[in-house]
């Protein structure tokens, strides 16, 4: 069995803080793994380790079977990333930003295809030709989603991707994740939204002080039980 994402005894120690303690995690194709936890619990550190933005103190992260530290460029062909706060070139239009990031990822889309990606992500068509400097946070988030989708990556790394999105857009995003999961994409999503995690995730993991303290399949719990479980760990 090849996992698309794998962490083996992954550990990150900062001078003053242990950010991640011996993380072992496997995520298979089609899985949507939601990381829950308070701020500073290590969710973002985990994602940054998979991205290669942070170097592990010990252990290793693998993307599509490739060790991140050894193949820092190669792995980025296989993953797409949506940060909590998508920032783009403000003087370019949404369309131009998408075209630029897609071409950097190796794709060359005709303008109508680019527009489709943006509207599919929920961006109004009239906004696509406007400078991103005029966008709201939610609109930038949608361009970020379009950039990630247009990359056709096997792995999605999402760091609170729905922050700034209204409930309708969040819901559409969940739909999108389900669709991608159906196509075999593995998703690792850090979130604070327990209910959405339950709704869209296949498994949830609860992190506390750098440690993954529990992992449950979402089918085994309902949202209330998950919330109770979460709160127990936080006390």
């Amino acid at each position, binding site marked *: 069995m090849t996992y698309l994402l794998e962490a083996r005894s992954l550990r990150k120690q900062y001078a003053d803080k242990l950010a991640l303690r011996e993380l072992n995690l496997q995520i298979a194709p089609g899985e949507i793994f939601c990381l829950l936890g308070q701020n500073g619990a290590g969710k973002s550190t985990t994602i940054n380790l998979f*991205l*290669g*933005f942070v*170097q592990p103190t010990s252990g290793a992260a693998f993307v599509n079977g490739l060790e991140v530290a050894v193949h*820092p*460029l*190669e792995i*980025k*062909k296989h*993953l*797409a*990333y949506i*940060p909590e*706060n*998508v*920032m*783009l*070139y*403000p*003087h*370019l239009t949404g369309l*131009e930003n998408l075209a*630029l*990031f897609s*071409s*950097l*990822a*190796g794709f060359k889309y005709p303008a109508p295809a680019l527009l489709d990606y943006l509207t599919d992500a929920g961006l109004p068509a009239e906004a696509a030709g406007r400078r991103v400097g005029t966008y709201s946070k939610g609109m930038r988030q949608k361009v*970020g989603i379009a*950039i990630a989708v247009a990359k056709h990556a096997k792995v999605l790394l999402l760091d609170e991707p729905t922050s700034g999105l209204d409930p309708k857009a969040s819901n559409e995003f969940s739909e999108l994740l389900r669709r991608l999961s159906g196509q075999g994409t593995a998703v690792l999503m850090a979130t604070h939204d327990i209910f959405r995690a339950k709704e869209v995730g296949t498994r949830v993991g609860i992190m506390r002080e750098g440690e993954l303290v529990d992992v449950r399949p979402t089918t085994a719990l309902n949202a209330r039980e998950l919330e109770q479980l979460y709160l127990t760990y936080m006390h």
Partner: protein
Amino acid sequence: MRVFWILFAAEWRHFRTARGLVLLCGLLLATGVYGIYYGTTEIARQRQQLAALPELTRRNVDELKVKFPGPADAGDIGYYHSTFAVHHPDAWAALSLGLRDVNPSYVKLRLLGLHNQLYATDNANPLKLLSGNFDLAFVLVYLVPLLIIALGFNLLSAEREEGILPLLLAQPIGATTVVGAKLAFRLTLVLGLAGLLSLLGMLWARLPLDGRVATWLALTVLYCLFWFGVVLVITAWQRTSAVNAVALLGVWLLLVVLVPSLLNLGVAAARPVPQGLELTIRQREEIHGGWDRPKTETMNRFFALYPQWRDTATIRERFVWRWYYAFQHLGDQAVAPLAAAYAHGLQARYDLVERLNWLSPAINAQSSFNALAGSDLPTHLAFQRSATHYHDSLRAFYYPFLFRQAEFTHADYAREPRHSFTSLAEVATARRGLPTLLLSVAALFGLGLLLLRRPIAPR
């Protein structure tokens, strides 16, 4: 490589929308054009001045012909007649004026003692001299680095601070490619501007398109590369835009202002040059003392230098010109060691600066440009030597009249020697600057690339 060009093209779009930078480039272009205008008009003014000198000499001769209608005593002519030692600029001096503003482009000479004439200059505003020339070389050496700093201080930190970097680095592109493309775009821009200005200057000044074109351009390219090397190292150091800006301006201040000033002070201390005042006083004392010394003493000292005039008539008159010129000559003799020490001292300072110019690429580039244009100190010293020889030849022309007591006729004016000296480009000196620059460029890029091997922090 494909990604490189995508990023390169994106940089162009980012640049186009950054109004401030576009304005800055336009400003540099405008100052460059002004620099070329300044240099070419200054050289044209000097040329015009030099071209008027033969007319002045001719008028002076005409006046003397009226004053002395018949055959005259050559002593009178030598006293009242003035001629000029002229230093014609090389055409390249229009792009790099060098010392042509501080040092006179001509010296007015009479048969009197040389040394109080050789160092005479026109009055000039010392404040203006202090600030230096606003020629193209100034724009390239002092201002272009500032443009490079303005273009490069936030090379990568801008994206980091705007939060774009995480998304950018999540794409399969290496840090070297990102930084390389950004650097390459700015390099193209700056070299385009510097090259455009250089070519414009060459056409405007109607320069002979000889091998010096390549040397000038090579110096310009390497000097710009040096500053891009500094930008690369600072970028790879991965600090905030503000820290980068301060660091880059600090390096500019250090290499363009501080090191040259300190080097100037240090070299002046290490290679002392006799005071001009001392020379002037010595010569004046010798010459003015000449009136009071016994004539035979003066003449015997003079004959020791010119034995061929020893058997001329003994002086019994109260005043005779050959005695007057003899003590003028002895005045020069008395300060000859001081004058030589002065010239040697200046040359020694220049040599020391040349040896130490690796300390600052600004000094290196400036002195190489000046050498290329023949507007530096060695050229001026060569002119002074040439003027000294000319004065010698004037003496050689007049002394037979004085000592043989031959009459100076109107026809003799035309036989008087004339002087002309044209700056010679020191291409070899200019080219010596290239390997030093190349070495520092290689060192900076090596260090920068080494630092870039560390992972780039996206936040």
